[in-house]
């Protein structure tokens, strides 16, 4: 085990020089070239364990021979359900979320937003700050922090469309971001930004003092876009879903900007963005 292994009860680290799963997967997909490809081929040639690991990559998937087709059928149903569910959601374009999102991905999105009659672009996530409330138990139930499985995904606009970001990603000033939310059940939603000083800013609804209703569903594209401002540092986003109307003053920042203490019955999903210096 490596000297820098963080805990004896966690899985051992990959021995130095042995290709990672990612390297094997990229090799199998034909994505590696040059030295990277040669390194994987050398490891496969010298290490029976690596070769076995490479050959077993599909074992779990095909252990049930019906799984590949069953999963594909599920994916098709998921794509169809996304199309069908979208008109029922508020502020959706005719034709469903997939088409709406695709339109955004294909560009000219501010015009598309205007044409759909939805909320316009917010200038910056930190444009309208409200101070984080002082620690208080008013309306809060300490210890009840998460319920349900609300999810928040952030997408960055790129040429010709968008790309999903991983929490912890670095973004640059001027970049445009949009958000999709998974809501396990209907409720009231706010997306809030918390900067390193603990200042809380409403991102969605933009500039609002209280939440807005959201139907149950996955990958619900929020009708708001945010431009990253030039303040470097970490910015935590929190999608908060509650069974009733609420506002920023019903929440408080926990031990760090990545934690919110929520009213009872509420759920949240955090997402970290790191803003690079301009």
């Amino acid at each position, binding site marked *: 085990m490596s000297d820098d292994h963080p*805990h004896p*009860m966690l899985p051992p680290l990959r021995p130095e020089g042995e290709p990672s799963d990612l*390297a094997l997967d990229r090799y199998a997909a034909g994505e590696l070239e040059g030295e990277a490809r040669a390194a994987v081929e050398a490891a496969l040639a010298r290490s029976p364990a690596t070769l076995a690991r490479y050959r077993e990559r*599909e074992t*779990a998937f095909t252990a049930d021979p019906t799984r590949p087709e069953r999963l594909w059928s599920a994916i098709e149903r998921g794509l169809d359900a996304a199309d069908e569910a979208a008109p029922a959601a508020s502020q959706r374009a005719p034709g469903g979320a997939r088409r709406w999102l695709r339109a955004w991905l294909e560009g000219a999105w501010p015009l598309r937003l205007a044409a759909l009659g939805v909320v316009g672009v917010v200038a910056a996530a930190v444009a309208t700050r409200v101070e984080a409330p002082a620690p208080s138990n008013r309306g809060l139930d300490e210890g009840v922090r998460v319920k349900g*499985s609300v999810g928040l995904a952030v997408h960055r606009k*790129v040429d010709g469309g968008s790309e999903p970001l*991983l929490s912890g990603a670095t973004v640059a000033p001027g970049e445009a971001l949009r958000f999709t939310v998974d809501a396990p059940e209907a409720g009231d939603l706010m997306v809030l930004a918390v900067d390193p000083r603990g200042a809380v800013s409403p991102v969605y609804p933009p500039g609002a003092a209280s939440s807005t209703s959201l139907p149950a569903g996955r990958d619900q594209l929020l009708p708001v876009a945010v431009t990253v401002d030039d303040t470097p540092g970490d910015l935590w986003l929190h999608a908060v879903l509650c069974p009733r109307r609420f506002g920023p003053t019903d929440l408080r920042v926990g031990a760090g900007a990545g934690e919110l203490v929520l009213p009872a019955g509420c759920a949240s999903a955090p997402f970290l963005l790191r803003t690079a210096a301009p």
Partner: protein
Amino acid sequence: MRGLYERHGAMVYRRALAILRSPPDAEDAAQEVFVRAARGLDAFAGRSSAVTWLYQITTNLCLNRLRDGRRRAALAQERVLPAAEVAVGPATSPEHIALRRVLAEAPPEQAAAAVYVHVDGLSHDEAAAILGVSRRTVGNLVERFGRLARAVLAGEEAP
């Protein structure tokens, strides 16, 4: 889309299984990964490796599911099951059970770094590239994850 699935479906399922442990949960997650991928397919357009892109989507989605409050409760009760009870895979060891408990409690960026290092076996350099941070940052995230692991797993004996 079918082509993307045929090329990478096994990989996405295996990664989801490694993180979530349950074959039904892994199938459900893999379905969602490809639905999300379909929405961003035009945007992807070869900006980076398709494998890396799908790794990122799978990691985000599975970590969100691990943080689900109901799943946290189940994780607390999780035990080492006989091999016959679960699908073949690397995710059934006591170490991986412990890992999932800590992942469910960890901040997102620590959890993502830990998945890449402990589940996927990435080097700190590889994890830094996929996370878009420095190698040193990955080291710090893994170290902080280790401290959290000691706190979460305190009182549990090493296997």
